[in-house]
């Protein structure tokens, strides 16, 4: 049980994610999470505004159910499969966060400086979360996929467009981490 309670190593998680992709293919689906955001827009009535959302949401129901499972999985792992949730970061990473003024570093999975009550109920903090989410949703649809659809599924199928998208993910991520985060915080 010790092994389950401790954080899982990359060489367990990577193959396990590939296994999830295989299961989805075998069950007649595919591994792509951001499509669900589009389906959810359709369910919320976005199809009345533009044809992009005129999709048969029933054909995507399996993926929405997969999302419900992911939520339950997060709950189970947090409440029944974890002994302690401190994240062991590289000392250099911790140091850089201290310089940004983060002080509850890696006590949980998310920093209080972004997700804590003081942040989310401030105008700046709220806009960070809604703006970051906006970029993720807009960018994923513009690129036609996210980390699962391009980085895992697309690269596994040796798709050049997915490689271009992943290069884009990294350009954007590096700009944010190295240039914008130090300005924002």
């Amino acid at each position, binding site marked *: 049980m010790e092994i389950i309670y401790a954080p899982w190593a990359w060489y367990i998680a*990577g193959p396990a994610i590939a296994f*999830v992709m295989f299961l989805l293919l075998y069950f007649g689906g595919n591994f792509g999470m951001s499509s669900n955001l589009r389906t959810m827009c359709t369910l919320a009535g976005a199809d009345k505004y533009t044809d992009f*959302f005129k999709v048969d949401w029933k054909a995507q129901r399996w993926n929405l159910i997969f999302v419900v499972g992911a939520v*339950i999985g997060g709950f189970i792992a947090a409440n029944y499969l974890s002994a302690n949730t401190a994240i062991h970061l590289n000392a250099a990473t911790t140091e850089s966060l201290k310089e940004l003024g983060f002080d509850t570093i890696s006590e949980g999975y998310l920093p209080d400086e972004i997700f804590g009550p003081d942040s989310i109920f401030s105008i700046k903090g709220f806009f960070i979360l809604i703006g970051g989410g906006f970029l993720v*949703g807009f960018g994923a649809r513009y690129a036609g996929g996210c980390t699962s659809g391009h980085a895992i599924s697309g690269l596994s199928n040796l798709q050049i467009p997915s490689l271009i*998208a992943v290069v*884009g993910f990294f350009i954007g991520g590096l700009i*944010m981490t190295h240039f914008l985060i130090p300005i924002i915080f």
Partner: protein
Amino acid sequence: MKYIKFLLTGILFGIIMTKAEIISWYRIYEMFRFESFHMYGVIGTAVIIGIFMVQVVKRVQMQDIKGKRISFYPKNKSVTRYLLGGIIFGLGWALVGACPGPMFVLLGYGYYPILIVVLGALIGTFVYGMLRSKLPH
């Protein structure tokens, strides 16, 4: 009942993402600073095994559970949409530390403020849909 297998696969996915700390903002920040091998190891092994898996599925013409041949569709050729869309996605991913899978896992974990991120992602998806015809692809 035909959906229960997707629910169970989703539960497995949520557990993996949580236990391997992939849903942690800190891990994404650390990855973009090249200060840990963890995330590269996760994505790298998933892709290497995935490449092998897709090749096997194609060679043996594997069928899915319903007896339909598992097929893969090539993505449309372009650079603009993948690069621009990718950069926009990457900016958001590094800021909030969650992509479209982990944001739902985090909700189950009990981090309810992530709902604001989910709302933002839905608005972003909607705005893309509205602007799609005006954007370079």
